[in-house]
């Protein structure tokens, strides 16, 4: 979380100063630190170093009392001697403050928790976003040449890769006129140490199931983003099996939305070879096929829904939560919405119960957000595709 220090140093605006102090006043646990800060600020004011006031209010937030005490005494000494090196001393101590944050394990101090919650309540989050603003989305397509289609999506520090491989297979007897699609997510230990061994399995299954629920529609295939009947080569005999494999390269929250977007981008990048079926085969025989390596069929990805995850922190919902914000959530709802504004899937996370009316409100908010997201994503994908064609 060290980067946050610097963000504060650089981007602190007057409004957030008042917000910081407000956030503090409402929390009794941190009030001691706050008073300490006020005291030190008072000393600082006497030495007429106005800049450090802002700094102090911020630093105090992430420092425990134990850390703040020696500093306070130091500043007292400096203040009484009227030392001009005060400012330097603070900067020094901040830059060498221990890094408490490592990916995966979120250990937040009460002050930090309060800062995140207070920010969300006042519609300005720790990275300056509003509640319903996404981080910039970066789309790259065709990153894995071995696959039929692939894409990499980056949203802040969240980084995922999705690939599509197509293989010829046999349709299941119950649905002879449909191809098969399967989605798997792999949480690699390169993303976080806790994914090692079987640690990532639980998250992988949860994400895979949520993606299948959101993108593949009902059992009869209604509402599916991918038209399964377009995958059939010979009814009842040959169809394409699409294997969509996703990899979490780096996780900084909002994995499901990123994975959904990556799958959408990968599918629009996918080319499926045209298949020539040899005539003459009949009965139970498997017809002979000839797979073209020149002609490819493109997918129509306009119907593929986007996934919007609304994370509920306190009384408010936010989109595109970071890991720290996710650690403060009471519950989250992932809603996949297609271009028509229909809901194509819904998954709830987090144990806390929700009032049904809140669920319905979240659905309507998600529908509203999805309109912008679909347009943004489509233009990003189109730009990425165009860029790939040129190179």
């Amino acid at each position: 979380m060290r980067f946050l220090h610097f963000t504060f140093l650089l981007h602190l605006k007057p409004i957030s100063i008042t917000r910081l102090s407000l956030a503090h006043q409402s929390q009794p646990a941190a009030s001691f630190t706050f008073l300490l800060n006020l005291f030190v600020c008072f000393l600082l004011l006497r030495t007429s170093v106005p800049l450090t006031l802002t700094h102090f209010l911020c630093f105090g937030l992430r420092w425990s009392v134990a850390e703040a005490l020696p500093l306070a005494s130091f500043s007292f000494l400096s203040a009484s001697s009227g030392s001009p090196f005060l400012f330097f001393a603070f900067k020094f101590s901040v830059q060498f403050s221990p890094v408490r944050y490592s990916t995966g394990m979120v250990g937040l101090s009460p002050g930090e928790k309060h800062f995140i919650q207070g920010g969300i309540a006042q519609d300005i989050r720790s990275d300056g976003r509003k509640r319903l603003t996404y981080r910039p989305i970066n789309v790259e397509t065709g990153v894995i040449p071995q696959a039929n289609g692939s894409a990499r999506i980056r949203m802040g520090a969240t980084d995922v890769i999705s690939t599509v491989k197509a293989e010829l297979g046999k349709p299941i007897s119950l649905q002879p006129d449909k191809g098969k699609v399967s989605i798997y997510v792999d949480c690699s230990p390169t993303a976080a140490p806790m994914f090692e061994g079987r640690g990532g399995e639980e998250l992988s299954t949860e994400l895979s199931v949520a993606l299948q629920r959101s993108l593949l529609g009902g059992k009869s295939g209604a509402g599916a983003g991918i038209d399964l009947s377009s995958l059939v080569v010979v009814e009842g005999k040959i169809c394409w099996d699409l294997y969509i494999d996703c990899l979490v390269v780096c996780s900084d929250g909002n994995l499901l939305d990123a994975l959904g977007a990556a799958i959408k981008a990968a599918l629009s990048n996918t080319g499926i070879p045209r298949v020539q079926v040899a005539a003459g085969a009949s009965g139970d025989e498997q017809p002979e096929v000839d797979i073209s390596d020149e002609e490819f069929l493109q997918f129509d990805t306009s119907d593929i829904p986007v996934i919007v995850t609304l994370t509920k922190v306190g009384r408010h919902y936010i989109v595109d939560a970071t890991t720290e914000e996710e650690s403060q959530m009471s519950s989250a709802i992932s809603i996949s919405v297609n271009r028509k504004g229909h809901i194509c899937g819904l998954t709830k996370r987090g144990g806390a119960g929700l009032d049904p009316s809140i669920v319905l409100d979240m659905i309507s908010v998600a529908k509203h957000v999805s309109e912008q997201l679909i347009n943004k994503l489509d233009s990003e994908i189109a730009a990425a595709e165009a860029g790939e064609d040129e190179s």
Partner: protein
Amino acid sequence: MAGQPGTTPTTYSPSPTTQKTRKPIFNKDDVDWVRPDGRGFHQCRPAFFRTGAVNAASGSAYAEFGNTKVIVSVFGPRESKKAMMYSDIGRLNCSVSYTTFATPVRGQGSEHKDFSSMLHKSLEGAIILETFPKTTVDVFALVLESGGSDLPVVISCASLALADAGILMHDLVASVSLSCLGKNLVIDPILEEESYQDGGLLITCMPSRYEVTQLTVTGEWSTPKINEGMQLCLDACSKLAKIMRSCLKEATSTSQE
């Protein structure tokens, strides 16, 4: 993929025969469609609950909804595994498995990971985990016979088993699912209806607190339809919870006698 030359090609007609066997239960154009078991669209199967099905467990329950038969036992609170990290609050461990003979096609009988995590997510909000710190409560569910709406039955039955084990909860958790077939919303679907559904909705809720602990939706839904579906399910959940409550009362009154 060459065809075997020796076999004489029997007449192959791609769609007509398969189509006939494929769509027996539901036809979109059929206005007077009735459900295979003769229920109304908004009518649930009769529910049967019994607690104390397994003597060795701290609490257990058996549930039967039509052909769906489920048994759930609860063990604990007991010591967490050594490898587990220290935790101020209790842990909940859920596992849902199918018997090999539960499904029409003989299955593997292995743990159903997807259902296990769903069961965990729907129960954890209702259990007061603070009451058993450092320990674990195990919930093992076994689907004896799968007859549709398996997961909702497992969830309702598990909450009953937890209550039977004396684990403190905010409220009983009742769960109901619903299938969307064409324009109709069909509550508490059976296996056949589930396999032809255009969309599905599952709600688990705490009826007395009127809180949804878990909600999943598949397929394409418009907002009014989701509204309607949720209302139907919530209504059914509160009725189901009444049945569950009366089952618990019955069990305590018979044990006192």
